[in-house]
């Protein structure tokens, strides 16, 4: 069981999950715990000889019932695939899985925020190469989504909607768009090739999306992921973070701050990518200013990075 401690100076929770120190670390390919259990082969986490998509409770959870959840979401039984190379139908199915997990975990009283994410590449701390993501059910509202809700209040409406309008009007940082989703590098991106994928319509969560929107959102995410891999002609490490409305019935984490109905409309589904590479072989590190002062120093301009990423997306199409 993890322990939660409150860091008074940072005004944030820190999770101590010391059992995770012993988790599987970059195993040999033939001992991948996320591959299917094949006849005559080693027993893996998935006791079936083949599968499409699987979700299971993390063996080394940061959170667990009745104080949250930590799940592993395996995209495919193909060890060498990636989110970018999934068939479009599989990527669309994956978004339905995201939706189902958001709905089921969000209904639990012990979960205030459902966070779906993927860490890709050893550069961002991946310990298993098999294509997979994770789902955390936080027993509190984490700082980043809380800040996004604060931005809504500061701007007097949905912040992602306002930012999308600004990006579409400017156009220089937009790298991909279809009928339902737009991908752009934010005006104040922290990472050289950070990109956000936002739905054109206000949709607090995946539960508010129709079938076509899910399909087109999947298409936008895959187009971006393929573009990343094309950018430096190497698998691009990244963190992919799915931001949705909180599920705690409150809009800002304060008890009784807003009605459940208001909270259900707060937040705007969007997916953020944080790739740590600033060139093909140079990583952006979180150093003194970023860690000690909380201020990112960027070596690149989003407008210039957007030109390169837009070209890479077209090449990969």
């Amino acid at each position, binding site marked *: 069981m*993890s*322990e*939660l*401690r*409150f860091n*008074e100076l940072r005004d944030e929770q820190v999770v101590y999950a*010391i*059992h995770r*120190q012993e988790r599987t670390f970059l195993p040999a390919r033939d001992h991948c715990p996320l591959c299917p259990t094949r006849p005559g082969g080693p027993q893996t*986490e*998935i*006791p*079936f000889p083949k*599968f*499409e*998509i*699987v*979700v*299971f*409770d993390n*063996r080394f959870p940061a*959170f*667990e*019932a*009745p*104080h*949250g*959840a930590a799940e592993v979401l395996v995209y495919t039984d193909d060890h060498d695939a990636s989110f970018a190379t999934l068939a479009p*139908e599989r990527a*669309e*199915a994956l978004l*339905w*899985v995201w*939706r*189902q997990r958001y709905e*089921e*975990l969000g209904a*639990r*009283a*012990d979960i205030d925020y459902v966070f779906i994410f993927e860490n890709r590449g050893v550069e961002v701390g991946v310990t298993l190469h098999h294509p997979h993501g994770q789902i955390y059910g936080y*027993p*509190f509202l984490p700082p980043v989504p809380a800040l996004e809700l604060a931005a809504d209040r500061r701007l007097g409406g949905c912040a992602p909607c306002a930012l999308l309008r600004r990006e579409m009007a400017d156009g220089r940082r937009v790298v991909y768009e279809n009928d339902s989703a737009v991908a752009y590098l934010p005006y104040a991106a922290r990472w050289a090739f950070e990109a956000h994928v936002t739905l054109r319509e206000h949709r607090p969560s995946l539960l508010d999306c129709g*079938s076509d929107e899910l399909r087109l959102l999947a298409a936008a995410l895959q187009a971006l992921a393929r573009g990343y891999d094309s950018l430096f002609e190497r698998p691009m490490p990244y963190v992919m973070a799915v931001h949705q409305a909180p599920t705690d019935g409150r809009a800002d984490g304060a008890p009784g701050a807003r009605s459940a109905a208001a909270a259900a409309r707060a937040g705007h589904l969007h997916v953020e990518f944080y790739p740590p590479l600033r060139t093909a072989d140079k990583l952006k590190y979180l150093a003194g200013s970023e860690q000690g002062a909380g201020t990112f120093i960027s070596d690149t301009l989003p407008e210039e990075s957007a030109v390169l990423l837009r070209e890479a997306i077209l090449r990969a199409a």
Partner: protein
Amino acid sequence: MPRSAVAQLNVPRPPREAPAEAGLYPRDMAGNRAESSPPGGSESDPDAQQGEQRRPPERYGPLELMRTRKDDGRALILYSRSKDGT
């Protein structure tokens, strides 16, 4: 942190005493929230004994879900595109 220190942390610890100052250290995770069952049922669920015991498939949008449990009790859900293609 040296591994020996981690091993010490993993040694079962006695129950903590109530904090001298309410609201400071430690803060229990999720306070006094109502407990809820993990997805797929509780440990007393008869379907929760072995991975071979599965529930009937469920539908969710275009997906078919098959809930089961691993031998150690952890929940596992298999998702597949429904066979009728809807």
